[in-house]
């Protein structure tokens, strides 16, 4: 009887030891297999403004409210127009800063007089909710100096960016840390 028990005991030991080895194997194999594919720096999400179709998903789909994706301004490209397609609603009677004339639903664009006939438009990022209406306006009727970018101080860098998931033109992609932004004016030159 004692021998019998011994046999079972040793068999059980063998099974558990073998199991341990088999189970431990992936813990070694996976890092080895991924050794070449591992990077010490992280990833960030980036919008390619040249692909963006200003669909408005950035405003509604980001996990942050307001969205981490905001409008930025490439001043070097801007025409400093008096009648700005990104600032004024289409078909306004007179050009003014009146709220009903503004395209931006949250009034996040500041219009400042520079010199005749130029006006500077500045995005107030605290207010901007990333609806991209001004980007569309500026792209359709202006120089396209307003464009969308993901602000990385707000972005929580989700594994699966929920804007990217629904971005119709696949303009959002995962890029290495160093390439966080595509600055439209610099890219052009």
């Amino acid at each position, binding site marked *: 009887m004692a021998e019998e028990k011994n046999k079972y005991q040793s068999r059980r030991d063998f099974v558990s030891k073998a199991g341990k080895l088999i189970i431990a194997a992936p813990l070694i194999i996976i890092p080895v297999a991924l050794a070449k594919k591992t990077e010490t720096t992280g990833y960030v999400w980036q919008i390619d403004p040249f692909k963006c179709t200003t669909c408005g998903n950035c405003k509604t789909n980001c996990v942050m409210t307001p969205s981490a994706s905001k409008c930025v301004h*490439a001043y070097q490209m801007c025409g400093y127009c008096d009648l700005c397609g990104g600032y004024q609603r289409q078909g306004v009677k007179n050009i003014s800063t009146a709220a009903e004339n503004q395209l931006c639903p949250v009034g996040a664009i500041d219009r400042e007089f520079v010199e005749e006939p130029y006006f500077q438009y500045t995005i107030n990022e605290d207010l901007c909710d990333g609806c991209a209406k001004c980007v569309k306006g500026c792209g359709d009727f202006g120089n396209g100096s307003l464009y969308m970018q993901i602000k990385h101080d707000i972005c929580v860098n989700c594994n699966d960016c929920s804007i990217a998931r629904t971005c119709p033109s696949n303009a959002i992609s995962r890029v290495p840390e160093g390439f*966080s932004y595509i600055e439209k004016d610099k890219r052009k030159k």
Partner: protein
Amino acid sequence: MKKALPYIILVLLLCWHAVMFAQDRFPRPEFETDYVYPEHQMPTQRAPFWQYIDLAVLIGALIVTTWLALKKRSRQGLLWMSVFSLAYFGFYRQGCICSVGSVQNVSLALFNDGYTIPLTALLFFIIPLVFALLFGRVFCAGVCPLGAIQELTGFAPVKLPKTVDVVLASVPFVYLALAVLFSATNSTFLICRYDPFVGIFRLDAPYTMIIFGVLLLLAGIFVNRPYCRYLCPYGVLLNIFSRFAGKHLTITPAECTNCRLCEASCPYDAILPSNTEQVSEAPERSRKRFILYFLFIPLFAIAGGYLFKNLAPALSGVNSTVRLAREIRFEKESGIEAVTKSALAFKEAGQTEADLFAQEEFIINRFRKASPWAGIFLGIALGIGMVSLSIRRRRTEYKPDQGKCYSCGKCFKYCPIKVKSSNEV
């Protein structure tokens, strides 16, 4: 200018990219005053150095939890550990980075050449598994923020009927198989998308997510840790690794006297009672049953593989490219215009339909290759589950079921045996 507008829009629609590059409609102004162009504000991400702080916190928390669960045997300490992890990984780090989601990064990196995995994500995947292999599921006990939030809200445990528990406990296996399949084919990150508590951590989420999370927490008041037990895909891996744990938390600090006081203490049904009084079966019979059940494993594996191979086209519907291609094809066949944003963007972008359909075919083929493996995994898991039912072990003491036990320490106070620590003697 006004007359030219429709043409500009037309050209814009025809070749979006070309127009974008040549968008300078208005000359840049030549300022007469000394106007300076404002600087671009492009803030950077939290420094990568902080990721290593997260990693250090993870390892530190795992070591402390292990010490609290195995050595100190302090339920109070484990609770405080949960509070800390919930505060740090949950509310401060807002649920990202987390080990549960890292499964997908690993599978994406294993099967896709374009993606390199961040070192932190790889280590967040590996380290809790190493700890599970050494000390059991200490990660669940006090480090995982998802576990912590449920542990802290489970006030009134109710026991589920065994059958319900067993059926529900198979859900995580399916969830894991699908999550790995979808991320391996670069389609979607299922686990992150349906993470129930991340909305609560960020205090901001779509209402569906909040409702799901709150409902889970409400259910968790009675059926403790519902996400961990019946959904968590990473828990499947921890479960398997923990079964082979070198050292594991014990209910009693010394020798079990079979007093049965701990019997009903575990809300997770993870205490294996001693069964010395059980009538033993004829070894001949149990051996036959074992062999029979063992033969079921390859059968289930083949059946699972076959089933999932046939499911491949349906499963590939989660991929956005496949969905878009289906919509465009539907438009062509039925004449009903496609109106989704992606369809509109596709038309604007000027990609050809042939290209799109070729991409769709490629992705579906990837699914055809990958999904049988998901089925095989599920078949084998089911088979091994059945075999384990046929094995009857003699136990002379009450001990935790190493696969199911979260090392939460709720059973400690039920054990009447106390061991005086050496400094008290």
